[in-house]
């Protein structure tokens, strides 16, 4: 047997490397650190002072545009009925997490079937694992790994991401679980059939105390035609595409 194992030592070593995830559960910060090193290699040089003014203006214009877009979405919601109570932001959560830590996106995920972003801030800035990451009032994902000065956010589109959500259709709402697919869309499952249609808006629900209720997730792109015991599946287009995200906010509690 030993002779056979010796002849197949490469295969044995490869099989043993599958044990790495079990044997090294605490090396996520190290992995994030290594990823940060690679992300830092082609980092763009900071713009000269005279260009900073133009950059600030561009940022201000972007904030204004996003604010207007947000207001338009809210108007659209109000036009459909009286959903104010349903989409009110989770004030209790925001009182527990009053800080918004700004972080720049330094890199993306190397795997085509996963979705994550590398952020320019880490534990030193107050970022902790599991905290929600937003752009405006839109949920982008949650913090998956934290290093000293760098962290990684698992996007909603990552296949390992699961978030409670609800779709708002006029005065009706249907709860479900929003799962990432690895592609450019999300799937909302366990939704009551017959509620919602293309264009309806999906918000975060209240099933997870780590994520505030009422954040924007996306809009319904397609409804599943197959009804299984009154449960339907919904295809959701994320409110923000991953490749357009450059600056995010991490919702963090008060400093300890």
């Amino acid at each position, binding site marked *: 047997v030993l002779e056979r194992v010796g002849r197949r030592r490469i295969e044995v070593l490869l099989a043993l490397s599958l044990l790495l995830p079990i044997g090294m559960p605490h090396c996520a910060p190290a992995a994030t650190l290594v990823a940060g090193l690679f992300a830092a290699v082609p980092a763009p040089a900071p713009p000269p002072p005279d260009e900073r003014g133009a950059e600030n203006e561009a940022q201000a214009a972007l904030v204004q545009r996003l604010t207007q877009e947000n207001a338009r979405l809210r108007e659209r919601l109000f036009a459909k009925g009286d959903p104010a109570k349903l989409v009110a932001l989770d004030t209790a959560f925001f009182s527990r997490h009053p800080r918004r830590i700004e972080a720049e996106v330094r890199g993306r995920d190397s*795997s085509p079937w996963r979705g*994550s972003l590398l952020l320019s801030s880490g534990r030193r800035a107050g970022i902790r694992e599991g905290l929600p990451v937003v752009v405006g009032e839109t949920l982008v994902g949650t913090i998956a790994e934290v290093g000293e000065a760098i962290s990684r956010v698992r996007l909603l589109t990552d296949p390992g991401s699961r978030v409670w959500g609800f779709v708002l259709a006029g005065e009706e709402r249907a709860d479900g679980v929003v799962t990432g697919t690895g592609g450019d869309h999300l799937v909302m499952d366990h939704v009551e059939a017959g509620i919602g249609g293309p264009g309806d808006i999906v918000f975060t629900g209240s099933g997870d105390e780590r994520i505030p209720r009422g954040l924007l997730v996306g809009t319904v792109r397609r409804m599943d035609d197959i009804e299984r015991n009154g449960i339907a599946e919904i295809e959701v287009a994320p409110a923000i595409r991953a490749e357009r995200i450059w600056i995010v906010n991490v919702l963090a509690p008060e400093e300890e």
Partner: protein
Amino acid sequence: VRWVRVILLAGALAALTIRYPVVPFRRGLCPAWLLLPALLMGLRAAPAHAAAAGWGFGLLADLLSVEPLGLSASLYGGAALLFARLRENVFSDHRYTQAVAAFLLTLLVSLAALFRLELAEESFALLHCLPVAFLSALVTGAVFPFFVVADDTLGIFRGFRVGDRRV
């Protein structure tokens, strides 16, 4: 053995991958960039060296992703080894063979990664894996001839086995 050049190639590819992964493709799709050099090693290097390099490329992919450490390492290493073992039974120098091998191996590796997340049986998982595998095959078919020229010029795999001959 030009391991230093292989490591430099891996570093450059890794930096490019996480900075500009989705530039040329629509709907967030991109090929499995770090799997491709592992397959290239499987094409030209000795099986043991191909497995080791594939493992290294996979480990790098794990480090640059939310993937658990070791998963891509073992899968990429296994894929490179499989390619190295099979190449003598097929027309391994033909670009169509390489593209088909890249398609099948990318599909296998991505499904294995999603299987671990218990998502492999979901229809959307397959719908995402298929285009990724197709893109990888497309890029492989286009890139391999340049790779062979680069290898002959830069000598990345000199000292490895080429076909049935050790150089």
